[in-house]
């Protein structure tokens, strides 16, 4: 039977980062991935000769190199990777767009602050009080008690419009809980988006994944693709054996799973005894990606990189009742990062919206395709409400299109309900009822590309390296 010090389930950002740490310090480690491609929830693919990113709009947490304690700089040190290798290009600027109101922001926090002052002058003191509360929060300890972020924000800011405009990007990028979130999580998201900001490599996420895999390989880490873990056989409070899809048996001292909390529990046989079985995430998304021959700068839309929009009086971040919820969403124009002399070649516009997993799951293949066709123009029209009048005609000028739904996410990541942001309850310290089984990635609680890497690193450090 193959034997490893650590078996890692999932070759996504957190699994590979954990693998790098473990392999670097001499642990015999193997990453098992059921898909043929690495990247997990943040993977990449090609279609009709074009390269697409699965999840990536932008990498958040784009802190300045001088911010030593910022998550991005910490992970670069921990993984022994140089910033240059990631070839990150900063955003040009983004916007939160509600009816009649825009708040712009970019990688310099002073812009956002001045916009809040411009639009909500009577709220600026409260806003600064909130910003201080975010700065003061100590996120180094894993086990802080839950505190409603809405209640903290309302203590500072009395205008519900400003409150909703602050929450909109933080929720979309991304919260696994409806309506509210833990204040600790709020501070992490606030810092990553407003203090630090967005960036993207010219080639998208594949560039980051390539660098990670190379490092992992250099460290002597082993990776098996097309090799899913079917079952974790447990007894005496431990995982004794991993059984692969093929039926092969693997032994490991420690198992670190990035498959998700409910998903990992479901792998265990016999079932884990637990007072409350972890629930799957309820928040699903659809995303429509349109490709144009010409660059978006000719559309008359300006340099907006990301637009977080809401059309209703109150912003609702909830499981969609309809197959797609058009009342809010995110527009991403990957061309609008500062790539220097280079550009993407073609114009790309991505529109994201909340979606209902059960609806999409219920369609047979023919209906599923028809529904996607039906929603495509509606999503485009939905986005256009929050963009300036444009010269581009989708019907005649869109040369390629792709769309993913919650079932797409489920198909390639095996996450319950295709929940991109995972389960609503996270295991902040990564532990499970089994003494040698740990969770990393989205369901440990750190989100985003940088967040997931930090999760893999932190969980590997805490549970497999001491």
């Amino acid at each position, binding site marked *: 039977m193959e034997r490893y010090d650590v078996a890692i389930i999932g070759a996504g950002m957190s699994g590979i980062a954990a693998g790098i740490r473990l392999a670097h*310090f001499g642990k015999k480690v193997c990453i098992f991935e059921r898909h043929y491609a690495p990247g997990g929830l943040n993977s990449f693919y090609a279609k009709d000769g074009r390269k697409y990113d699965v999840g990536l709009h932008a990498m958040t947490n784009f802190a300045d*190199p001088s911010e030593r*304690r910022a998550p991005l700089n910490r992970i670069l*040190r*921990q993984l022994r990777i140089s910033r240059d290798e990631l070839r990150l290009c900063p955003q040009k600027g983004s916007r939160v767009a509600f009816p009649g109101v825009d708040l712009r922001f970019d990688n310099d926090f002073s812009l956002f602050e001045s916009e809040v002052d411009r639009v909500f002058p009577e709220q600026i003191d409260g806003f600064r009080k909130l910003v201080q509360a975010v700065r003061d929060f100590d996120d180094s300890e894993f086990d802080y008690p839950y505190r409603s972020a809405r209640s903290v924000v309302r203590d500072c800011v009395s205008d519900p419009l400003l409150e909703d405009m602050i929450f909109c990007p933080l929720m979309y990028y991304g919260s696994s809980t409806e309506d509210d979130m833990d204040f600790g999580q709020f501070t992490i998201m606030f810092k990553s988006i407003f203090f630090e900001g967005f960036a993207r490599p010219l080639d998208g996420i594949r560039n980051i994944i390539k660098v990670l895999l190379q490092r992992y390989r250099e460290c002597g880490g082993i990776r098996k693709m097309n090799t899913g873990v079917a079952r974790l056989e447990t007894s005496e409070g431990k995982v004794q054996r991993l059984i692969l899809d093929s039926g092969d048996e693997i032994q490991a001292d420690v198992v670190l799973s990035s498959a998700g909390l409910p998903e990992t529990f479901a792998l265990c046989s016999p079932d884990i005894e637990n007072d409350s079985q972890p629930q799957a995430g309820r928040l699903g998304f659809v995303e429509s990606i349109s490709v144009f021959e010409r660059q978006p700068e000719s559309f008359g839309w300006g340099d907006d990189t990301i637009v977080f929009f809401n059309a209703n009086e109150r912003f609702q971040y909830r499981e969609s009742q309809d197959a797609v919820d058009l009342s809010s969403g995110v527009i991403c124009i990957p061309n609008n990062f500062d790539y220097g002399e280079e550009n993407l070649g073609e114009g790309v516009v991505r529109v994201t919206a909340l979606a209902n997993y059960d609806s999409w799951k219920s369609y047979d293949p023919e209906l599923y395709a028809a529904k996607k066709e039906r929603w495509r123009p509606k999503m485009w029209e939905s986005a256009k409400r929050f963009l300036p009048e444009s010269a581009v005609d989708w019907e005649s000028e869109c040369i390629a299109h792709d769309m993913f739904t919650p079932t797409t996410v489920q198909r390639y990541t095996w996450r319950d309900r295709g929940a991109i942001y995972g389960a609503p309850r996270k295991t902040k310290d990564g532990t499970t009822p089994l003494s040698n089984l740990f969770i990393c990635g989205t369901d440990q609680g750190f989100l985003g590309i940088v967040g997931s890497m930090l999760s893999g690193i932190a969980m590997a*450090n805490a549970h497999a390296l001491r």
Partner: protein
Amino acid sequence: MSKDECKQVVLDIIAEIAPDEELGDVKPEVALREQLDLDSMDFLDIVMELRKKHGIEVPESEYGQLVSLDSCAEYLTPKFNALV
């Protein structure tokens, strides 16, 4: 191994862990945390690199011995010399 050589070993490890730190002016008697921007993950890496590169074990209860270059030298030099 002399204490000075031991200090250099520690500095070499720190240079690898935190390549953007200025190590030229590090005062040996002052706490490393006060002169350099090292967090708890970095300190853990110092311990682990000592094990990986030099086979030296530092139990968690003794992490405090690594507070400054001088204290590192006091604590680690005998451990290096015990390996030979």
